[in-house]
């Protein structure tokens, strides 16, 4: 990967993070393609197949991965561009109580890797996130995890065509997910 391209992707992701922290959600939504799938999967707690801690199991049926599957399992978020837009419209109603008063967020994006995508106009981009959320007087939460993005070049600019979020928690320790990632 060319150094220049890596810098371009980094700047794109940092700017995106700033839009979220400044609550510029309508501008943020414009960063997505119309066909985007944006979803967040959770983790489970599982024994490795080789574990001696469990004595009875069907090894052929055992699923070692602790990341929920992309289809069929419950996700924490599973959105289209239209439903992301619906969430933003909800915030604009003046009656979205979970964000009234709004959360103070800080999105830290790191460990950015850029790889060629499935087509010439696409890139696969990996990154990690640490999102701090503070609200009201003393509420605070950390949301930590990984992102797997597909960026697509549309008319000379980058758009997010796919975003998979993997949250590093089994039991979600925050009371809700009312912010974006």
């Amino acid at each position, binding site marked *: 990967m060319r150094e220049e391209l890596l810098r371009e992707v980094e700047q794109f992701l940092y700017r995106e993070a700033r839009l979220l922290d400044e609550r510029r959600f309508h501008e943020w939504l414009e960063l997505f393609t119309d066909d985007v799938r944006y979803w*967040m999967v*959770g983790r*489970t707690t599982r024994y490795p197949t080789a574990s001696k801690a469990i004595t009875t199991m069907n090894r052929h049926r055992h699923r070692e991965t602790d990341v*929920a*599957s992309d289809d*069929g*399992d*419950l*996700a*924490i*978020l*599973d*959105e289209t561009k*239209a*439903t992301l837009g*619906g*969430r933003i*419209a*909800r*915030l604009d*109603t*003046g*009656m*979205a*109580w*979970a964000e009234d008063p709004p959360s103070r967020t800080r999105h830290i994006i790191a460990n950015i890797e850029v790889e060629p995508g499935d087509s010439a106009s696409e890139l696969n981009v990996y990154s990690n996130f640490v999102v701090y959320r503070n609200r009201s007087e003393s509420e605070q939460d950390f949301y930590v995890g990984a992102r797997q993005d597909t960026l697509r070049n549309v008319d000379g600019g980058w758009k997010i065509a796919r975003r998979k979020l993997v949250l590093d928690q*089994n*039991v*979600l*320790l*925050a*009371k*809700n*997910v*009312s912010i974006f990632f």
Partner: protein
Amino acid sequence: MIFATFDPEAPPLPEYLGEMTWYLDAFFDRREGGIEVIGGMHRWVMPCNWKFPAENFGGDAYHVQWTHLSAIKTSFSTGVVTKPNATGTMVSPGQGHIVICVGPTDVGDPPVPEILAYEREIRPEVEKRLGSRLGLVNPIVGTVFPNFSMLRATSRTFRVWQPRGPDKTEVWSWFYVDKAAPPEIKEAVRVAGVRGFSPSGTFEQDDMDNWQECTRTCRGVVSRRLSLNTAMGLGHERYDEDLKAWASDFRISESNHRQFYRRWAQLMAAESWAKV
């Protein structure tokens, strides 16, 4: 679905549920084959007392138009009626179990076109299985005393509110669907649940903020000196022979709150099941 207890003196399940069994069937036994759970579960921790979600699911019909108006207006593309209907009733089949029912012809399902079409299609089978009581009420959300709740109106979920101390509750939430439903309906229910009734749900996230603030407010010095007021609709409720349950005259009432907390107070004060 398996119910269990560590209490050797507890009454047998059919006795404990009583007439609530019909209302459970109205959620879980609508089609031949019953239900199945959609992959996995949601678990998360809410900073609230477990009784707030339990009473909310079984009695709080009046929070919807204020708490959830933002989601009602923006979460669904079609078919949403924001005007509150006058039909429906709060129902308690006894022993603290509580159910919110809309009118028999009111929509009690997620306003997603394919789910509504599916429900129309299976209606004859559902009527046949559930009998004439379904012509009187449409149960959409409720609580099996004390902390098991279920909901049909914005998704298909049942959950357990696990107390983790006086001001903390861990939610164990599942989505379910008729086993006989076609794959596209199962997927529509999964997606409606994730988007509406989950930790990120456009409906549910506002509930959690309410319950947190209710819990905080109740701990205040002044609020501890006062009694909880659940007098709404007092005197406008009666035992309904056809519903086989206590029922409020009007859809908006705290009659179910009274049933729930009366049972709670009774069990908290009783030395043994024999004295309940």
